[in-house]
């Protein structure tokens, strides 16, 4: 068992006092930002980049990993107590979680969410540890043409599988791709879309992330007149549940774990989709489907497990292929690049300590999170009493710190405001924001792979169609893009024929 030996080595790294401390820092911050609506893991990691840059890479990724896991724990608290998801992965939890809270079962809803997250985090991390080395073997077969094709699948999946309209998703993606072009071309040194400005030469990725997520969110909520939010269901004491509730929870936990991991690993956009599927599945399998929507504990247990194991799943393509499938993973990829590390198959041989230290720290962080979230649930719930004006005031203060603190550039503050307005416009008009981030960060990488592929083939574009893996991946991308509208068209035609 190669993976287990590597994992043992990883634990020897993760169990050093300093790394335990960083893990605790990461999971605590993660729980906090998970609970606070309006601030998520993608934004937090983007804001931390200038600070963590001074740490060694292992410490930084131990923090980021713990933060990503912790955010999934914390977000359920917000969903359950005030019916507002702390993160997108907990949207489903608002349905039955909040109903449970209104009926006085808030401690049980929080307990099933926390224990389910722990079970799923453990299952997911174990699957990550065992599967990643296998995916690495597969990834070694990949050349530039295959990577480009794979990234096309990610682009299409991220923009068209989530959200109500594939067209709006694709427009978001192309806005992101356009933003990603700004700056110096890495291969030829040509300046692109910089309009003679020195400030644009280095690109604008981090500013755009902060602008969209922090300033855009603040603008959106400050200008939204129907944003009063529900009353907070008060919570005292620890989260706990009855034997009956345990009995009803354990199967959804396991099913949620099993659904979340592969869907997170596929380039289908992270933690949202698996929670929806898990909820539908639990409803279908339940003896009492009529309880769903009125406080069924399975409707909390399944999705809350699914979102945590999806996070472990997201790390598989990120670490083995350098392929981000969520906005948070895209920012983590930027962090790797800041350290001059390229995730991919070679990461596992060249930076084995970092990878396995990170994976081991996820097991440890997951256990810490269970301890932090079960007995201390009541304490965390107090964060919900921070008044909205101060919460968003604080978010903006941190946003300008993250942007202005690094380069002290007034120009970047202007970009921050402009991107915030773009984010406001997009949110108001119903364009999803995540494809912008993925397009902006993955776009330049896709371009590098494309150009490497055609350099090797000496300008022959058929290389994408003659190599079997590349061709099949591109076929998948086309199917994901054209499949749903074609199905709709066929259904509509049948309806017309019948009616």
């Amino acid at each position, binding site marked *: 068992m190669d993976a287990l030996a590597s994992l043992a080595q990883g634990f020897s790294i993760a169990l050093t006092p300093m790394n335990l401390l960083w893990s605790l820092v990461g999971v605590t911050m993660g729980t906090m930002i998970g609970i606070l609506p309006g601030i998520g893991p993608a934004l937090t990691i983007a804001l931390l980049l200038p600070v963590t840059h001074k740490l060694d890479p292992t410490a930084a990724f131990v923090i980021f990993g713990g933060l990503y896991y912790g955010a999934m724990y914390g977000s359920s608290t917000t969903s359950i107590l005030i019916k507002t998801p702390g993160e997108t992965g907990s949207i489903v939890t608002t349905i039955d979680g909040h109903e449970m809270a209104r009926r006085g079962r808030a401690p049980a809803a929080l307990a099933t969410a926390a224990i389910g997250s722990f079970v799923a985090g453990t299952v997911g991390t174990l699957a990550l540890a065992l599967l990643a080395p296998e995916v690495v073997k597969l990834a070694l077969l990949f050349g530039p043409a295959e990577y480009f094709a794979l990234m096309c699948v990610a682009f299409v999946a991220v923009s068209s599988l989530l959200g109500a309209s594939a*067209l709006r*998703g694709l427009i978001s993606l192309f806005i992101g791709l356009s933003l990603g072009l700004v700056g110096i071309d890495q291969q030829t040194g040509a300046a692109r879309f910089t309009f003679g400005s020195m400030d644009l030469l280095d690109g*604008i990725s981090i500013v755009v992330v902060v602008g969209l997520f922090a300033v855009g969110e603040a603008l959106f909520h400050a200008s939204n007149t129907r944003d009063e939010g529900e009353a907070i269901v008060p919570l005292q004491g620890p989260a706990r549940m009855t034997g009956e509730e345990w009995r009803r929870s354990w199967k959804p936990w396991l099913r949620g774990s099993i659904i979340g991991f592969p869907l997170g690993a596929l380039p289908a956009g992270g933690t949202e989709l698996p929670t929806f599927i898990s909820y539908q599945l639990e409803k279908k399998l339940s003896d009492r489907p009529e309880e769903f929507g009125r406080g069924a504990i399975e409707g909390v247990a399944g999705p809350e497990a699914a979102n945590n194991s999806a996070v472990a799943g997201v790390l598989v393509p990120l670490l083995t292929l350098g392929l981000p499938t969520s906005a948070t993973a895209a920012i983590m990829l930027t962090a790797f690049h800041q350290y001059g590390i390229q995730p991919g198959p070679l990461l596992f041989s060249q930076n084995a300590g970092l990878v396995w230290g990170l994976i081991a720290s996820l097991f440890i962080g997951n256990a810490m999170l269970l301890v932090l979230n079960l007995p201390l649930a009541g304490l965390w719930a107090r964060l919900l009493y921070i008044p909205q004006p101060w919460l*968003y005031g*604080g978010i*903006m203060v941190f946003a300008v*710190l993250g942007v202005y603190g690094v380069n002290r550039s007034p120009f970047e503050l202007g970009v921050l405001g402009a991107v915030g*307005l773009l984010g406001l*416009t997009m949110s108001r008009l119903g364009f999803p924001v995540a494809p912008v981030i993925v397009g902006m960060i993955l776009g330049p990488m896709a371009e590098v792979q494309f150009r490497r592929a055609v350099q090797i083939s000496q300008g022959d574009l058929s290389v994408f169609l003659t190599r079997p893996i590349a061709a099949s991946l591109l076929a998948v991308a086309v199917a994901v893009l054209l499949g749903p509208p074609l199905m709709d068209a066929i259904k509509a035609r049948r309806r017309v024929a019948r009616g």
Partner: protein
Amino acid sequence: MIGRIGEGNDNGGDALRSRSKEEALVRRDWPTALFCALLIAASVALFTTAQGIPVRPVDPVLGPRLFPLAITGGLGLLASLLLLRTVTGPAEPATDAAEGPLRWTGAALVLAGLLLFGLLVETAGYIVGAAAMFILVARAFGSRRLGYDIAIGLALAGAIFVVFTLGLGLKLPAGNLPQLLLRS
């Protein structure tokens, strides 16, 4: 490019502000149509700019120029398609679109806070600039407790300044307010 998109947003905001209830009932989504039109204008401008990106003879398939052309061209086409659908057909479904009318003052106060930070930070320093922004953003969210806002803003900005400059070596501007106060 950023400038163009930024301007576009101002216009998009104007359109949102002027959207009355009657217009919302007619299922033409004019704000989306306007946003698409601005995206098309931006993509045409960028597509034209992209043709000036230098391509060396050794670069296959247009080298650094190919992706800018393809991406801006694609953006223009997709925006045209959505514009066409918005103007002719039923409204394209939207993801989590806001329901209520836009409260313009809230957004303006947040942006004013950002602007104020930019104006103050190099002269008055990070603490004053960030606290001023905090107060305006709190106003934007309807805070009426000015005393608390000032106290919390200053405390938060002060704590961040100490932790990040002394603890983590980030160079935040201290500002010349202390000297000015001493001199007067």
